[in-house]
């Protein structure tokens, strides 16, 4: 089954776009070797973040490696991970939430890569995701008004991007908070890029 492309109308204005900000905490960057430890999802309706739809799940690693060194980054220990759900339980919830929505993520390749791997691993058809990446948007925000088009990598991190747009600093860095941070960043980026006009999905990609 192919994924329904509900929001794939690329002329749809951002004010009518349904998105789902997704953040995954993982044991590493390689979907073929590393595992998902937690998932955070925050829906965005047009230019409004619906906090009631925010969900965060801890995921129990299937392999013997456990959390390993990555615990230092996200603070998820083997103990919390052990009490969590399996990826097979969480994956359908994530896919259902994505139905009809554009996937919004900061450096979306990680999210799409791990989702892709998870679908393959669980024999689920990979949805045909429409993706908006806040790293790409931030690059555009930063390029405006700069004579030289160079944007340094450290300017593109989630915290740095938020700081640049005057958004508040978050203390915790779990998947749910990062998904919210990404959703807020998206609102600020759209406002910064749109000027007085309204953007379409096409202009976000």
């Amino acid at each position: 089954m192919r994924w329904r492309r509900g929001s794939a109308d690329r002329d749809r204005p951002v004010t009518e776009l349904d998105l789902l900000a997704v953040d995954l905490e993982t044991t590493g960057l390689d979907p073929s070797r590393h595992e998902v430890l937690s998932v955070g999802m925050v829906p965005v309706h047009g230019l409004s973040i619906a906090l009631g739809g925010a969900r965060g799940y801890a995921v129990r690693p299937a392999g013997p490696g456990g959390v390993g060194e990555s615990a230092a980054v996200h603070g998820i220990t083997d103990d919390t991970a052990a009490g969590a759900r399996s990826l097979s339980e969480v994956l359908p919830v994530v896919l259902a939430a994505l139905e009809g929505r554009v996937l919004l993520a900061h450096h979306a390749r990680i999210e799409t890569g791990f989702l892709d791997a998870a679908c393959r691993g669980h024999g689920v058809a990979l949805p045909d995701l429409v993706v908006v990446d806040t790293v790409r948007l931030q690059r555009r925000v930063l390029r405006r008004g700069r004579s030289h088009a160079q944007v340094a990598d450290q300017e593109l991190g989630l915290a740095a991007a938020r700081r640049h747009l005057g958004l508040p600093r978050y203390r915790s860095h779990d998947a749910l908070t990062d998904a919210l941070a990404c959703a807020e960043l998206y609102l600020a980026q759209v406002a910064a890029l749109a000027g007085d006009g309204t953007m379409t999905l096409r202009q976000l990609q």
Partner: protein
Amino acid sequence: MDAQVTEVADFLAAHAPFRELPRPLLSALVSSASIRYARRGTRILSVGESSRVMFVLRSGAVDITDSEGVLVERSDVGTSFGMSTLVERAPSRYDFTAIEDSLLLVVPEPSFRDLCQSDPGFESFYTSAHAARLRRAVGQLHLADRGGAVLRTTLGDLLRRPPVGAAPTTSIREAAQVMAREHVSAILVLEDGHLVGVVTDRDLRSRVLAAGRDPAEPLATVMTPDPETARSDALAFEALMAMVDRNIHHLPVLDVAGQVLGLVSSTDLMRLEHNNPVYLVADIAGAQDVGVLVELASRIPVIVEQLVAEDASARDIGRVVTSLGDAIERRLLTLAETELGPPPVAYCWVVLGSQARHEQGLASDQDNALVLSDEVTSEQDHYFAQLAERVSSGLEACGYPRCPGEVMATNPRWRVSVSTWRSHFAHWLETPEPEAVLNGSIFFDMRPLRGDHRLVEELRAPVLAATGQADLFLAYLARHAVSRRPPLGFFRGLVLEKEGEHRDSLDLKSGGVAAIVELARVHALLHGLPEVGSQARIAAATHAGSLSPGLGAELADALEFVSYLRLRHQGRQVRMGQEPDNFVDPGQLTDFERRHLRDAFRIVRSAQQALGQRLPLDTLS
């Protein structure tokens, strides 16, 4: 783990009124809310627009302006705005504009209403008028009755036994026997339960034994008829002041209905707990020279600080400070008279301004004047000039600076006969000039301190009868009262004055205490009310219908709140060895105090607006 967005809940929990919400209610609120972003310059809500949401500022800054574009408030992170449309179920009366890129937390109406229903604290935070909030704040400042007992001691509290009395027809001997048996130094003479006189040990000595009177004669022949009395709710220290002043040692105490409750003696008053202003008053009254007074006056700041620490109200502290100032001034007058001899004609020494209103603080100048009998001749003025100079220099030595505007009895202009005073007042009332009205307004806060009080009453009655009709005079006075603009509030640790104006210190006097004092004065004079104290004026003006009951109560609370903060500030300064002033660093105020100060400022502004609508200030040149 189906986690909540804890960052948002934690953010809300750091700000009022969400801080007080139980966690489950807070979670429900977060789940119902959404987040929006407003770029700098974006209009979030406009005048006349209806909105079904309340906003909480998550980051950035939002200006709230009225329909004329005047800045009303600048919202800082954590503050709510736009809820008035929900509370009043009416279109917005303000424009809300992001002045920085802002993140907004949007709370929908049903969720707002649910919270109002489940949490009374939440509801009253938004729905009660500033007044109710401020009233609670005043209450919270003076937590219960911790300390301050001495100040709040009333004469009723001092009564230890029912009155010991005798009929006027009782023989002197019989009455003396009752006094001996009951171990009292005075007996009340009662006729049908009403007080008609008092007889003391001293009377038995001087009017009976020394005079060779027959002890079989009725008590009425030796009693002091119609003695001075006091109500049981009078403050003990004020009663002592009066007794010291009139040299009486026994004071019958009556209830509100005039029934005799008992008798207090100066000894009872002295027995009040140690280290209190009452002792200081007594010491002042007995001081033999100015040097002793200077030493005693230096204790006043310590007493103020102690009273603030004891959570006495600003009103009580103002009365104590004033009573001490009064005692010093009276004593200086007595000392001066002892040196100069008795006055050639009757006089009344009056105090003006804050001292007259019983609202003296630690940074008060001396303001006084002399009302002389019309018989006074220009040669006799020499006596009063010397009297005034002695008192004024004594006050200066005691820490009361001379009035920079020369409003003192040392100034020949303010040392004149009743008739001359009458023409002064007539001039202010009938042919007012703005400057003269301002300078003269202090004389409308006048209280006789020593001498023949009747001179002042002769003066005051016709003046008060005339103020209500002096339209132009009132208009000038009102215009000045309205011109003292209170700040809008606070923004990022600074005082927000008006658009584009921030200050790093808050003047608690100009837009606060002084603004309310002037409003109270205008209302009192508008109706010719004899009250002089600002709280008394507000109460009387409310009673007279000049202030609406709501606004009157609000103004009273605002005065108490701002005055209290001012006294506390001055007490701290004195402890740190600084000169007391009226300027507070907003960073030293708590979130709670800043919020309620903002309420107080709003109340002052609405009282100013109400007055401005009543008096035709615009027609003034």
